């Protein structure tokens, strides 16, 4: 019994360690390119829809959690649909936020 618990605990610690290393790498990358700032060109930064999306992201999503890492548009489409239902985000807000998050 004790041995099995010990093995499970070691495995968990290893997993958390791997997660920390991965997160640290992600964090380094994020320092230069935070999710709230588009790495795209000036034209994208001037995109009014993107700016509006950023504003609505902070108003809606930022109430509960930080900006997530960048995901592919297809993943974001799923996430935003989930959050539309879960957080009762308006249809218009979801469009702007999805646009912003896929920049």
């Amino acid at each position, binding site marked *: 019994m004790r041995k099995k618990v010990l093995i499970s605990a070691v495995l968990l610690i290893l997993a958390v360690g791997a997660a920390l290393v991965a997160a640290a790498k992600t*964090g380094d990358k994020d320092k230069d390119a935070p999710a709230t700032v588009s790495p795209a060109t000036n034209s994208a930064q001037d995109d009014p829809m993107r700016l509006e999306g950023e504003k609505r992201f902070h108003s809606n999503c930022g109430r509960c959690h930080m*900006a997530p890492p960048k995901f592919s548009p297809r993943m974001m489409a799923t996430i935003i649909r989930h959050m539309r239902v879960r957080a009762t985000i308006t249809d218009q807000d979801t469009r702007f936020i*999805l646009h912003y998050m896929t920049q």
Partner: protein
Amino acid sequence: MPKLMKPEWARFIMIPALCMLFCVALRGQDGSTAQGPDSGATQGQTQGQDLATTQGPDEHIKAIPILTGATAYYTKVTAGQVQDQPWFIPVLLVPIGDKWLVEARADDYPTFERGANGRFQEVSNEYGLQYATVDYIANKYVTVVAGRFLTPFGMYNERLQPYWIRALQGIPLTYGVTSNTGLGGMLRGGFPAGTQSVNLNYAFYFSADNTNHILGTTRATGGRVGFFLPKYRLEIGGSFQQLLEGDHSHNVGLHTEWQPNAQPFTLRSEFAHSSGIRGSAYWVESVYRLSQVPHLHQLELVGRGQQVFADPKLSAAQRSQVGKLGLDTNQGDFGLNYYLGRDVRGSASYGRQFAFNKDANLWILGITYRFIMPLGPTGGVH
């Protein structure tokens, strides 16, 4: 939420499975990030122009299934009793077509305590299905939800309860005032309330009685209405729930949340009152992110105060039945969260609980890892 003791063998499967999931999730994240922000930007710009022509995002981007969720490891010391709890909370999201979404969240956690022999041993291993619903986005005003759902009462249960979101790991005492899950149908949505300055959000549901030992729910109906002012980042709302069995009690609640635009600060509060045996309770929580302080911008300070006003007419049996809501209680908590990247968060908190003959110190220390991985090809805009 009903919990079930797991069979003996299951505990030895959970943690190795959890480790494997970590590895797969990390690969999934690398894969999605590796696509590069530049390609996403190009796609996003094209899509943005399309969006401006009033088409919905799902009509341009094919959503894919996702496995997300969190794992956590927490050590809790409650009145001197040490408990270790590894958690595993998977969330499955399966979009179907443009309007449908199947979503489910489960949790699984064993609890280890120091036994009489001085050694840590597993005292329970529990799991539950928090929700499993089929959602249909009927139009921009209404989403139809069917299945096992989280009760839309206040804001904590639906929005703030997940481990990777909650600011303090200890749950508020209002959490037990209402039943937290239902089985049935719900209509919900959010839309501008005649002006862009105010968004109205709502959820109304009916839940059937279910005596299944895993999916047990109470026959009840209720709802929540909230008004959100985006400009001021302020939400005010109210909730109600009417039990249609048992003592037929009704519950009412109020909630509010405010995030000033100029400061990385959040103030939120919830109040719940039951006409039955569960009394009343409220909590007020503030969160301040030190985002402007060099070297500490990943640190978050959290404080919460709460009070429970128990029904003074409770019998001893009823007190036992309602647990923490059975005694007048005052509690204050202070916590720190430190974000290691965007997906890993270390948390520590101390709380002092004042209840008649049951004052206690509450310490919690732990780490949470949020994972997300695609269950399908991630590339391309359709």
